[in-house]
C-alpha cells in the first residue's frame, strides 16, 4: 500500500517520533469521533430503554408522561413514507432512465443534471416552504398526509434520481449492445434488460433515500404538521404526525419524564431506520444472487 512498498525513509529520530505522534493523534481523533457516536447512542439508550414497552408502542400521546405512547406517530411515519415512495419513485426512476439512457449530451440534459445536483443540496426547510406555498395554500391540501408526502417526495426526488442513475450506469454496456444487436428497440432494451439488471442498486438507493425521509422534521413542521394528534390517520386527507415531530414535541417539554419518552421515541425511530437499511442490504443481495 502507500508508503509500505518502499524501505522506511532514513530520517532522524526526532522526525520519526513526530511522525508517530501524528499518527497516534490521528487515530485518537478518529476514536473520539466514534466515541461521540457511542456517547449519543449510550445517552439515548440510558434514558429511553426503560421506557420502551409494548404499551408505549400502542398508546396515544398523553399529558401524563407515563401514559404517553407513540402509536399515531409511528403509524403516521409509515403512512407518510409509503405515500412519499409511491409519488417519488415512479417520477424519480423515470427521470433517471431518461437522463441515463436517452439523454445524450444536449444542453438541456446537461442543464437538468446540474439542476438535480443543486436540488440535492437545498436545505430541507426550503422544501417545507415550497410545500407550504404550493401544496398547502395554492392546492388547498391543508395539513394532510398528502401535503406532507408530496413535500417529502420533492425532497427525496434528487436523491432517488442520482441513486438510480448510479445503478443504471453500473449495468455493463455489453448488455445493452447485445440487446440492440438482436433488434430490440431502446425501450425494449431498457425495460427488459437494463432495468432488471439495475434493480438491486435502485432498491438500495430508494431505501436509503426513504430512510432519510423518515427522519425529516423541519419540512413537515413548516407545512403545519400538528404535535398533538391522538389518533391514527386513515386516509390521505387526514391530519397526521410523524415520529420526529412527536420526539420534538416531547423534547420541548421540560419535565424529565418526557425526556425519557423522547429518548424511547428516538430508539423506535432508530430501529425503524435500521430495519429499512437492513432491508436494503438484504434486497440487494437477493436480487444480486442470480448474477
Amino acid at each position, binding site marked *: 500500500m502507500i508508503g509500505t512498498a518502499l524501505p522506511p525513509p532514513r530520517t532522524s529520530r526526532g522526525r520519526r517520533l513526530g511522525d508517530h505522534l501524528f499518527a497516534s493523534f490521528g487515530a485518537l481523533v478518529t476514536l473520539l469521533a466514534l466515541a461521540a457516536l457511542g456517547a449519543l447512542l449510550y445517552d439515548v439508550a440510558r434514558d429511553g430503554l426503560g421506557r420502551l414497552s409494548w404499551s408505549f408502542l400502542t398508546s396515544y400521546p398523553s*399529558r401524563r408522561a407515563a401514559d404517553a405512547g407513540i402509536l399515531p406517530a409511528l403509524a403516521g411515519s409509515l403512512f407518510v413514507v409509503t405515500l412519499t415512495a*409511491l409519488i417519488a419513485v415512479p417520477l424519480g426512476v423515470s427521470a433517471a432512465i431518461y437522463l441515463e439512457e436517452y439523454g445524450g449530451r444536449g444542453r438541456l440534459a446537461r442543464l437538468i443534471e446540474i439542476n438535480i445536483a443543486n436540488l440535492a443540496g437545498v436545505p430541507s426547510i426550503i422544501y417545507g416552504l415550497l410545500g407550504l406555498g404550493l401544496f398547502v395554500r395554492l392546492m388547498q391540501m391543508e395539513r394532510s398526509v398528502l401535503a406532507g408526502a408530496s413535500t417529502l417526495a420533492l425532497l427525496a426526488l434528487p436523491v432517488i434520481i442520482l441513486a438510480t442513475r448510479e445503478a443504471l450506469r453500473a449495468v455493463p454496456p455489453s448488455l445493452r449492445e447485445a440487446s440492440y444487436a438482436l433488434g430490440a428497440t431502446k425501450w425494449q432494451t431498457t425495460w427488459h434488460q437494463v432495468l*432488471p439488471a439495475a434493480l438491486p442498486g435502485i432498491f438500495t438507493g430508494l431505501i436509503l433515500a426513504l430512510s432519510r425521509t423518515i427522519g425529516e422534521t423541519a419540512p413537515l413542521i413548516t407545512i403545519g404538521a*400538528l404535535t*398533538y394528534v391522538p389518533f391514527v390517520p386513515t*386516509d390521505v386527507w387526514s*391530519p397526521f404526525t410523524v415520529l420526529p415531530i412527536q420526539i420534538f414535541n416531547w423534547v*420541548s417539554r*421540560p419535565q424529565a419524564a418526557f425526556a425519557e419518552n423522547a429518548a424511547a421515541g428516538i430508539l423506535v425511530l432508530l430501529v425503524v431506520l435500521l430495519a429499512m437499511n437492513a432491508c436494503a442490504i438484504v434486497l440487494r443481495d437477493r436480487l444480486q444472487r442470480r448474477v
Partner: protein
Amino acid sequence: MHSPTETRGHASLRLLLIVTLSAAAVACGRGNEASGATAPAQVITIDGSSTVFPVIEAVAEEFQREHRGTRVTVGSSGTGGGFQKFCRGETDISNASRPIKATEIEACTKQGIEYVELPIGYDGIAIVVHPSNTWASAMTVADLKKLWEPSAQGRITRWSQIRPDWPDREIHLFGAGVDSGTFEYFTEAIAGKAGQSRGDYTSSEDDNVIVQGVSGGPDALGYFGYAYYEQNRDKLKLVAVDDGDDTNGAGAIRPSPETVANGTYRPLSRPVFVYARVSSMDRPEIRAFLDFLLDRGQPLVREVGYVALTPREQELVRRRYSERKTGSMFAGTDHAPMTLEQRLTR
C-alpha cells in the same frame, strides 16, 4: 425469450406498478369522501392558547377514552393564531387566554362565524426565575413595566438597572410570543396597552420552551400561565408581585390557586376561555365534547394547576351554552372592573 434475470426483475416491476395503482385508487377514493380540503367529519379541530392547552389536552384525552370513535386534534398556535383560524372557519373550538378582540369579532362576523364564549377557569400569570436567584423574590408592577416596556429594548439589560441593590448581571428574558393571549394580557396589565413589549427576548408560543429557558440558567426571568409553574415546581422559583394597591391585598402577593381565586393576585389574574362555533354544534360529537368539558372539566382545570369556576359561575356558563348565547361579554368594555359573574348575568 426472456432471461431469468429479466423475468424476475420484470415481475418485481409489475408488482410495484399494481401496488402503486391500487394504493393510489384507494387513497384517492377515500379522499373524495371527505370534501377535499377539510378533515373528515369525525375530527374535532381545536386550536389556540398555549396557556389553555394543558386543560383541553386533559379534557380531550379523557373524552377520547370514553368516546373511542371520535378524534380530537389540539394545536397551540397561540390565542391570536387560534382566533385567526377560528374566524376562517378552520377550527371548531378556539382556546383563548384573553377575551376575543374587536378586530377578531369583526373577522368572524365577516365570515359569518357565530360563537359562544365560555369561560372555563382562572389563571394567574406567574413571573418566574431560576431557583438559585436569591435577589428577585418580589417585584412591583413598576419594576415589571420598566423591564418589559418597548423602550426597555436594548436598554435595560442588567438586573442592577431595575433595582440598584440587585446584582450587576445580565438578564436573560423569556416570554410569550406575539400570538399568545398571555402576551396580550401581560403587556396590557403591565405596560398599559396590549402588544406593547420589548422585542429582544426569547419569545415562544410554546410555554414549555419558556420553562426550559428559565430553568436553564441563573440569570433568567420569564412569565407564563400558572399551570406551567405548577408542573415544573422543582425547576422554577415564583416572584411575588406587588401592584401597589393595598385594598386588594397588601404588599407583594405570590400567585396560587387561592390568591387567584380571591382576587388578591393582581393585576395578573385573568379568566381563560374556549370559544365554540355555533355551526359546529350541529354535530353530535361536538355537543358531546362540550358537555364533557362543561360538566366534567373543572376537576381537570384544577389538576392542571388553574383555578376552577365557582359553582354559581359554572351554572351560568352552562346556561350560556344551552341557550347558545352568542357574542362576547367583553365587547366594548375591555377591562371594566366587573367580575365574571356580573358579566355572565348581564
